[in-house]
């Protein structure tokens, strides 16, 4: 709470320092309609007139007080019967219609003199919605790019989650894969597949005009965890999100993966609005994976020990072999119940917006406490945000955006860390062991049991005694000025800073946790602490020009530059073997074993940009964008670059055009087609995530004993440059039947040139690989977005569907082929195929008899190079490379593809009187998953507990089973990386279901009150055998679809109330 109050104080100080004071006094409702479109009726507007009627689309009732305008020409309002009359410059003019509570709409007259227009309520998703673009706000029906826009309506009915998870399902073509069930971990965002092997594939995020850095610069010291900057944006603070999928050349070498523009809470009106919301909810424990119970495990254990060469007598003498003999080995513990539990979550949020005609502001504060399903884990978030808009003079406007968000997270190790991952330990731990110490006479101690006879940690000790804390905060603030130089000319600048700091500490006690080994000592207990920082300075300055050449032609242009300088720092310390488990800090570790280290990074980026938009007759739209980028990361001899003063600049142009076919007169024939637009775009974007210093040749330190010498760190590549992504997109936006049915379809092709690869070089270079630009890939695909209103009466039923599909292909890679390893999986990256295919052995049942095994005649190679034949009970691996009769790496083949065939969402929105029901289903189809956890739980190679699948293991000659034999150490490699562990990761999930009820109020004190009931991850239809089919263990393309045992997604519900004052 301390940090929170500190932050609040700081924020208040800043607010006052800006000389900005705001009143919380409620003001009379402003009679003038505030809109982004300037309305200025000119007295001398003469010309033909049109008449018309505006009605409500669902009730058909005439609407009064609706504004009809032709910007810069004329404007009027409807009368009480919904009728209006307005002067128009020509009969081909476009009317802009809006009214409070209703959508804004554009109507092309196409020569008609009388029209009737039906309006939907303002929350209806329409092509006429205003969309925020980098330089302006425009109606979506005239934008030539492929974009998706989300208007959040406050997200009151949503569970508090990270902004990236929130995006899941909302944008066609954006495959947001939630990393894990850990609160705040967020999602990996793959917009239209991926464009790079080694550089980032995450889109650029811009919040309120400033780049919001979401890269992970230093891995967390807590296994399986990732600091997620997008967790530091409360989704209730988000007003709208625009996703630009094609030709984001304006962001130069940062736009290759598309751009996500986020606008946070600002005042829409000068009226003071106070929203308060409070939620409480419950997270449900995940369903257990069925592992063996004590009896079956005991049998399995005897069998596996015997296969390892132990005699029956020796096994019989072991303390655990006979049930009941030794109390400490006679329990039946469900370890999963010990580490997984249901938990509560709560969330409070207050937002105040308002102001006057000089200044408006949006202020929010919030608190979130979300517990994880792994016991004793949670995430707490304190946040505050202040956005202000000031009219300092008629020409000068200013904006202030400040946010400070602090999270504190209690975590547990996850994933590949088998020493301290409680979830994995709970699966493999012997069920006959007790949670607490048990004496010989059977009495139970309050102390937790130590590591067991097999050296495996006690999961309950990890839960109750281990510590893993992450404390992160980010200050993200900017101030902007906008000066109107002349009628058509505006100069604006935005200056901002990001300061992000993350501090982690962890400790694992000696008692209860298995020993680890350093090269110089056995590790009993260990501790760690780290601090990572990001400091970033940002400026965006531009000159904007807008001119209507005549009634038909309009030009807008922007020229400017963005500059970013960032510094990162990581410092860490590791301590080992402190004297007792009470001494948990690094400083208390044995001094000879302490390790310290760190990393520093720094880079500068300059993006000069030019934007020119041209509009003709409100039907033809052209947009040209160009980024010219310099960066400290680029090599000084980069080819294909603009040379200026010794530096190399990337030149990345793009052009987009749209034809609003429905505004053509010939389209008058059909009133079925409300809107039809064809979009085409082509251009270049870049990716500068090539390493801060890879282009330079540098030196690193090399010790000789404690002396520090210097040696060459690399072979520099002064030709190293950005990756270029060439993007082509064709799209159609169609609204039919008076907007009852809307859909967009986009077909795209992204080609990555100069893709960053780790290229092998001649041995005489002394290094294995050098970063070069000798790769390429291509991703083609399509996105479809469909929405519409099925029932449009008092009961309203809207339906949505979006689907994305991509196909990736490596077009160029050194040696045409590369096999990577991650978490025991082999991943093939080969020219002509997708970048990340699972590459392993195919299997075909098992040998059930000795005869079968020997007649197959296949052999495998032992570690020492000698050959051995498969036995009965071994897996029958497919011998692709038949000549040698040996199952080895030559027999590996593609056994799975983690890329989905389709991903997307479908949803329903039902509205009846005060009731609203939203349901959103997300789905992923055709993606393969490597279930590494199951590979450990069914390998039958050691003392780990196994799943019930192994009950049917091969035990005798001729046994009809598909489960191989138990064999200590798995000599035949039955558990090797094969299609046995590849599963179909397809799923359909009811992602959110929310019901809200607006309480009818008669009081003046409250403006409104709404009650929400929300459920998340309600059900998931999948064949996947692990906890949950959705996870993303790394940000890398290679590593997707690999279940390394992270905390699973879980069900949750919440009940909440929102009150408006």
């Amino acid at each position, binding site marked *: 709470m301390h940090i929170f109050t500190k932050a609040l104080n700081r924020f208040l100080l800043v607010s006052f320092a800006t000389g900005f004071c705001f009143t919380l006094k409620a003001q009379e409702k402003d009679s003038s309609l505030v809109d982004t479109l300037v309305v200025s009726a000119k007295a001398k507007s003469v010309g033909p007139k049109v008449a018309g009627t505006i009605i409500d689309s669902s009730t058909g009732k005439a609407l009064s007080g609706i504004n009809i305008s032709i910007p810069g020409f004329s404007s009027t309002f409807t009368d009480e019967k919904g009728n209006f009359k307005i002067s128009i410059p020509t009969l081909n003019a476009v009317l802009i219609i809006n009214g409070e509570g209703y959508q804004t709409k554009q109507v092309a007259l196409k020569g008609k003199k009388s029209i009737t227009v039906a309006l939907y309520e303002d929350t209806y998703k329409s092509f006429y919605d205003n969309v925020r673009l980098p330089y302006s706000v425009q109606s979506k029906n005239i934008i030539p790019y492929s974009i998706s826009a989300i208007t959040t309506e406050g997200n009151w009915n949503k569970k508090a989650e990270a902004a990236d998870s929130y995006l899941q399902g909302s944008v066609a073509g954006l495959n947001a894969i939630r990393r894990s069930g850990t609160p705040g971990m967020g999602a990996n965002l793959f917009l239209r597949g991926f464009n790079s092997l080694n550089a980032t594939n995450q889109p650029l995020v811009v919040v309120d005009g400033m780049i919001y850095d979401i890269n992970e610069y230093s891995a967390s010291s807590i296994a399986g965890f990732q600091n997620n900057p997008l967790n530091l944006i409360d989704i209730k603070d988000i007003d709208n999100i625009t996703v630009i999928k094609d030709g984001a050349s304006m962001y130069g070498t940062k736009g290759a993966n598309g751009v996500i523009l986020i606008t946070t809470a600002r005042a829409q009106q000068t009226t003071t609005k106070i929203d308060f919301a409070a939620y409480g909810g419950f997270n449900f424990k995940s369903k257990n994976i069925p592992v063996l119970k004590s009896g079956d495990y005991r049998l399995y254990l005897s069998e596996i020990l015997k296969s390892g060469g132990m005699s029956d007598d020796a096994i019989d003498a072991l303390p655990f072999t006979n049930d009941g003999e030794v109390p400490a080995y006679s329990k039946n513990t469900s370890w999963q119940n010990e580490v997984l539990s249901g938990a509560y979550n709560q969330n409070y949020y207050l937002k105040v917006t308002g102001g006057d005609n000089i200044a408006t502001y949006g202020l929010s504060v919030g608190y979130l406490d979300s517990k994880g399903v792994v016991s004793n884990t949670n995430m707490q978030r304190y946040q505050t945000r202040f956005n202000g808009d000031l009219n300092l003079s008629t020409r000068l406007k200013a904006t202030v955006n400040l946010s400070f968000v602090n999270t504190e997270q209690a975590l547990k190790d996850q994933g590949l860390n088998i020493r301290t991952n409680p979830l994995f330990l709970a699966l493999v731990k012997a069920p006959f062991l007790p949670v607490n110490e048990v004496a010989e006479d059977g009495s139970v101690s309050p102390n937790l049991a130590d590591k067991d006879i097999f050296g495996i940690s006690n999961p309950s000790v990890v839960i109750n005694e281990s510590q893993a804390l992450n404390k992160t905060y980010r200050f993200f603030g900017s101030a902007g000025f906008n000066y109107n130089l002349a009628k058509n000319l505006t100069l604006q600048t935005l200056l901002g800073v990001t300061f992000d700091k993350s501090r982690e500490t962890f400790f694992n006690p000696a008692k209860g946790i298995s020993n680890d080994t350093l090269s*110089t000592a056995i590790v009993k207990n260990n501790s760690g602490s780290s601090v990572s920082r990001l400091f970033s300075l940002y400026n965006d300055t531009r000159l904007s020009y807008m001119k209507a050449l005549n009634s038909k032609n309009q030009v807008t242009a922007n020229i400017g*530059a963005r500059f970013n300088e960032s510094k990162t720092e990581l410092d860490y310390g590791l301590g080992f073997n402190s004297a007792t488990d009470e001494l948990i800090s690094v400083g208390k570790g044995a001094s000879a074993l302490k390790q310290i280290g760190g990393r520093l*990074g720094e880079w500068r980026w*300059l993006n000069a940009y030019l934007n020119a938009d041209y509009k003709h007759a409100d039907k033809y739209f052209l947009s040209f964008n160009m980024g010219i980028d310099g960066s400290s990361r680029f090599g000084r001899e980069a080819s294909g670059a603009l040379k200026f003063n010794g530096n190399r600049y990337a030149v990345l142009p793009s052009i987009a055009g749209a034809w609003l076919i429905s505004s053509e007169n010939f389209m008058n024939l059909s009133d079925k087609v409300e809107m039809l637009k064809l979009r085409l775009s082509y251009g270049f974007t870049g990716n500068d995530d090539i390493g801060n210093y890879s282009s330079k040749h540098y030196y690193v330190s090399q010790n000789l*004993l404690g002396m520090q010498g210097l*040696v060459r760190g690399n072979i*520099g590549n002064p030709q190293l440059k950005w990756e270029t992504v060439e993007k082509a997109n064709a799209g159609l936006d169609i609204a039919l039947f008076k907007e009852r049915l809307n859909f967009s379809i986009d077909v795209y092709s992204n080609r990555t040139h100069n893709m960053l690869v780790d290229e092998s070089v*001649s041995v*005489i270079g*002394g290094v294995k690989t050098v970063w070069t630009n000798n790769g390429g890939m291509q991703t083609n695909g399509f996105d479809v977005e469909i929405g519409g209103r099925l029932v449009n009466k008092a009961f309203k039923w809207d339906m949505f569907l979006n689907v994305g599909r991509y196909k990736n292909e490596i077009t160029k890679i050194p040696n045409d082929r590369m096999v990577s390893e991650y978490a025991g999986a082999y991943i093939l990256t080969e020219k002509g195929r997708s970048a990340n295919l699972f590459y392993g052995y195919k299997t075909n049942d098992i040998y059930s008899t000795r005869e079968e095994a020997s007649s197959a005649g296949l052999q495998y190679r032992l570690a020492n190079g000698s050959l051995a034949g498969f036995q009965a009970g071994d897996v029958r691996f497919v011998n692709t490379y038949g000549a040698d009769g040996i199952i080895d790496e030559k027999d590996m083949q593609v056994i799975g593809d983690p890329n989905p065939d389709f991903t997307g969402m479908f949803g329903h929105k039902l509205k009846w009187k005060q009731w609203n029901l939203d349901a959103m289903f997300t789905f992923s189809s055709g993606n393969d998953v490597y279930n590494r956890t199951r590979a450990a739980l069914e390998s039958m190679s050691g003392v780990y507990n196994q799943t019930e699948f192994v009950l049917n293991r091969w035990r005798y000659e001729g046994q009809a089973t598909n489960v191989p034999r138990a064999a200590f150490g798995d000599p035949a490699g039955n558990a090797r990386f094969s299609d046995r562990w590849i599963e179909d990761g397809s799923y359909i999930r009811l992602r959110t279901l929310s019901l809200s009820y607006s309480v009818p109020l008669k009081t003046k004190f409250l403006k409104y009150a709404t009650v929400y009931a929300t459920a998340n991850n309600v059900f998931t239809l999948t064949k996947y055998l692990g906890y949950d089919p959705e996870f993303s263990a790394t940000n890398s393309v290679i590593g997707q679809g690999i279940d390394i045992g992270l905390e699973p997604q879980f069900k949750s519900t919440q009940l909440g109330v929102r009150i408006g004052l």
Partner: protein
Amino acid sequence: MLCVGLASCKDTFDIAPKDVLEHNQTYRDIYDADAAVIGIYGKFLGIARQHIILNELRGDLLDVTAKSDKYLREINDHSVSADNPYTDPRLFYELILNCNDVLKNFDIMVSENKITRDQYNQRYSDIGAVRSWLYLQLGIQFGEIPYVTDPIENISDLKDASKFPKIGFDELLTKLAAFMEGLPYKKDYATGSSLLISVDTYNTTKFFINKNLVMGDIYLWKGDYTNAATSYKAVLDSYPNDQSDQYFETYRVTYSNANDYVGGGNWYKIFGQPLNERYSNYENIWMLPFNKNFSPQNPFIDLFLTTANANSYLLKPSAAAIKNWDGQMRGNVPGDLRGGYSWFTYNGQPIVAKYYYNYSPALPFETTSKWILYRASAVHLRFAEAANRDGKSKLAFALLNNGIKNAYDPTPGVAGRDVTNIMQTLEPAPYNFDAREGEFPRFRGPWYRHTGIRSRMGLSPSAISPADSALFFNMTDPIAYNRTVKDQPKLTLFTEDRLVEEAGLELAYEGYRWPDLLRIALRREKENTGGGEFLYNAVARKFTQAGLPVPAGVTALKTNSKNWFLPFNW
């Protein structure tokens, strides 16, 4: 505006790496120069494992164990597959790249007066010698290799493969010899040098390569025996007039203070004592430390010993090696003490003991030890090899067996003689040894304590049997001392066989074996005296003595000298 302003500044994007150093942040003063030298030696430790594996497992004294992987077996069987990681020369070239970089920058530093000419001479010659040693090693293993002396700074420098043609071993040796001759400084770092310091309880004096030894080796491989002997003699004659134990022990294989004497039962101390530049480490001329507190960790423990690590004990002494030691005689007592100190049985398995002494399985993390790269016995044997090839077989025998004083004494054991004209070789340099020890007049020649390799261990001389004597010597003179050589070529070959046998007994598992066998085989191949046979016989014994069939790769050694080298297709 801002954009133009930033772009017009040339250094806007010139950000120096923060946790690494760019070139202009290095090589500024003598401390940077020293850091460059330290960096090379620090990295040098990284090749220890590969160096020992290639040079010993390809020879006859080391064998694979049940735990050895496929690749070690390939090395053992002389049939290496293309992806065998032990034959990847990358670590060597990485060091060479660094040496090239250092040499180039030293040139720049001295020309810009950032270091003095004297500082330059010492450091340049040191790193130049390290590079030559590395190339010699590559030549020994691969035969034909690319000889690169430019520092490759950028990938564009690497692209043009024609810039780095492979050259043959002979050409390589010629280039190396010329380069070494051109070095401005051949001695050890001068007293007072900033590199001669004490660090982490170690004295750095013996960390640095001995340039004369590198030159001696290069000439010996080239077949330039007088020059080889001259270079080795320069080492043997270090501090020629100093009669202290230190210099006798270090350079003149001799007796000294009984407690510290590293012969006889103390021989194991050469390996067993902690790295130190004094006493029991006198014998060691060039050695580097492995300290448990610093990386890299000692690679030999897992390689040779049974430890907690499941992948340990990968290599063991061969049956042939054990037999060699067992076959030696100390008077009437069979066995060579060095055998017992070079290997022994641990938990029922034979292990290489030379790497065991500082280690105890009960203290698995106490891995501090040393890597001996050159020691006095090796210099003596190589000098003897050169002398023998230069027609000085008697001198070679003296070094091998019981020392100069005894070998050049017609009436050994007689007291009170005038020794003015005996106990010395009376040969021109480099074969001039004065081992006189007499009282009337008093003589204490610089070599008066010299004992010979075998005599130091109390072993009977590796003698020529009377039957064999007739093959080589003119037997008409009844006094053996006065007999002249009848057939010098035969005697040379015979002596060479004895020398290489002795090297196997004395220097096993220290990284000398395969080069010794190969050098002699190449020499004999050139003069048509059965190089292939020699190499085959030596290596095949490893298999036949162990009761195993001789692998095809070993048989192929007999037929073509191309098979003696590893394929260089990296």
